[in-house]
């Protein structure tokens, strides 16, 4: 009798122990994602700083405000329909919360009126996981913002940011960056830290928008050669990128799934095992190789050296859960160098005015990233069906995400352009966005305004104002089309 009683007590202790252990695990997981959300804010502080430094002085405040208001635009849209898209579209087409598909349980938590969206004593994870994804959405939209500087309307940008951040990227994430996504379930598509899912798609979307937006006035000569507009503050730009890099570690960490009661405790979004140390190692070697490749490809140019670091990291993100350190070092070096050459080609041959090289750094590197996995890291079981990663699965990713991003960006911006809501009037662009939308000059009177200068294609530095004014007059005579423009016309 005593033995039976003691056995029952032991059973109750085990159950209580298991329950408290599960709750501890949930609390620990909640805390982990909370701190990744906090640190990921540095990515946005970095984007704001980086872009404000590249912009000309007359557009600095408009640039900064655009980055800040990205948060105001993407947050509610991601809540009201973005999270639903991710959780209820993984099989390819939308499902309902009562569907027979195994992702229907997640779909229940994706509906904006779900009680999983408020304080819920049985669910510590949904909200904080949502917030981590929200920060990814801000990042995706912010990638586009730098490319459109100095001539896009704030309202047009905010609409495009909501579309990119709350619909386009999260749809491709449902398909290829989830345990139940059809691309992973059937084809073993493997993009563990969102190379193409975030960066590739954002770059493709941005390219579509740039085709309709057109270059800045004075960017190209009549012969189509590119001029260089001098940045307002290059040191701030470099600092901004370093802030982005800091926040990237939290981005990487938030891409993992944590289950602290199960050994080894860390998994990718596809639920395959990895470790926090492994992905941290890959991102760090990604920076090292990226800076190196960017430096030599650009012959020591500071902007492209630091941008090369970003390109390198993006290039190794897709396989960060499995890459050996040496492989990450070599891949990031090659990716950064290719990004530099791609940026050059896009600007000079393609005549696409991408102010910060976002299409090259994010778009090209993002798609290269998933191709590298197919080339160097095939054979890894991916997703709940354990389909091996392969070059064909990765190429399917390119074939799916590239048109998804490009066509939606092109079409949305085309609609805005047709309504004359995409670009500021040329008179406003020449005067400076700050003057019209915010304050005439953000600097105190003690800081004199030097005449703006630009660099001609042959390297000579000239005063910008007379040239830009001449372009404005010709623009009016040509019916509103900047000279030298070729792409998209």
């Amino acid at each position: 009798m005593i033995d039976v009683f003691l056995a029952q007590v032991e059973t109750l202790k085990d159950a209580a122990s298991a329950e408290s252990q599960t709750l501890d695990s949930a609390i620990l997981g909640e805390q982990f994602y909370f701190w990744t959300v906090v640190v990921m804010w540095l990515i946005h502080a970095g984007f704001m700083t980086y872009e404000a430094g590249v912009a000309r002085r007359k557009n600095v405040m408009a640039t900064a405000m655009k980055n800040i208001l990205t948060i105001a635009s993407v947050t509610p849209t991601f809540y009201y329909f973005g999270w639903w898209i991710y959780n209820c579209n993984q099989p390819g087409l939308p499902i309902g919360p009562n569907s027979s598909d195994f992702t229907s349980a997640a779909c229940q938590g994706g509906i904006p009126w779900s009680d999983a969206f408020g304080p819920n004593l049985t669910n510590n994870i949904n909200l904080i996981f949502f917030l981590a994804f929200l920060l990814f959405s801000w990042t995706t939209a912010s990638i586009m913002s730098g490319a459109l500087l100095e001539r896009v309307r704030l309202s047009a940008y905010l609409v495009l940011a909501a579309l990119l951040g709350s619909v386009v990227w999260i749809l491709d994430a449902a398909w290829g960056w989830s345990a139940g996504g059809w691309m992973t379930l059937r084809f073993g598509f493997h993009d563990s830290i969102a190379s193409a899912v975030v960066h590739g798609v954002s770059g493709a979307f941005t390219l579509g928008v740039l085709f309709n937006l057109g270059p800045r006035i004075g960017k190209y000569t009549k012969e189509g050669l590119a001029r260089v507009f001098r940045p307002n503050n290059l040191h701030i730009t470099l600092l901004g990128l370093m802030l982005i890099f800091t926040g990237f570690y939290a981005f990487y960490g938030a891409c993992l799934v944590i289950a602290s009661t199960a050994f080894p405790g860390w998994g990718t979004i596809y639920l395959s095992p990895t470790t926090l140390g492994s992905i941290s190692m890959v991102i760090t070697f990604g920076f090292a190789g990226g800076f190196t490749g960017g430096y030599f490809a650009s012959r020591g140019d500071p902007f492209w050296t630091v941008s090369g670091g970003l390109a390198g990291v993006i290039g190794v993100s897709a396989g960060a859960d499995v890459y050996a350190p040496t492989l990450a070092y070599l891949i990031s070096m090659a990716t950064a160098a290719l990004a530099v050459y791609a940026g050059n080609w896009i600007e000079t041959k393609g005549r696409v005015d991408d102010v910060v090289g976002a299409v090259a750094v994010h778009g090209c590197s993002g798609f290269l990233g998933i191709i590298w996995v197919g080339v160097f890291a095939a054979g890894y079981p991916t997703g709940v069906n354990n389909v091996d990663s392969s070059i064909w699965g990765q190429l399917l990713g390119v074939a799916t995400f590239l048109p998804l991003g490009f066509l939606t960006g092109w079409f949305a911006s085309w609609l805005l352009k047709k309504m004359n809501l995409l670009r500021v009037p040329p008179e406003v662009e020449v005067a400076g966005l700050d003057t019209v939308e915010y304050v005439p000059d953000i600097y105190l009177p003690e800081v004199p305004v030097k005449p703006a200068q630009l660099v001609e294609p042959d390297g000579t530095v000239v005063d910008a104002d007379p040239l830009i004014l001449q372009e404005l007059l010709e623009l009016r005579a040509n019916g509103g089309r900047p000279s030298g423009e070729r792409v998209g016309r």
Partner: protein
Amino acid sequence: MPAIINSAPDCITHNEKYSADDIADFILQDNYKDCAGFMTFGPGSTYGDGGAGATGAYMTLTWIGIVVMVIVFVAWVWYENHRLTTFAETGHVPIHPIEDAPPSPSAQ
């Protein structure tokens, strides 16, 4: 699916679908249960004495990385020396054709 380079170590099994144990553990570990480390080109097992487990492809990869690193250091030294001495001798930094240098916000 055919692969270009199947770099997954041999300790990884390729059982499709998930097992009951995997569901319980939440992380899909069944295909990795025979592995300790499973990095690309790695040996897929806990190293023996003094790194004895690192053979073949992984050793080759590591040495490629070491060689590239050395080349990078040599290149850094050479390139900077070239720029500095050219300026000291001519008063100008080396000029590259516009086609070679990407347009950059850093341009002066």
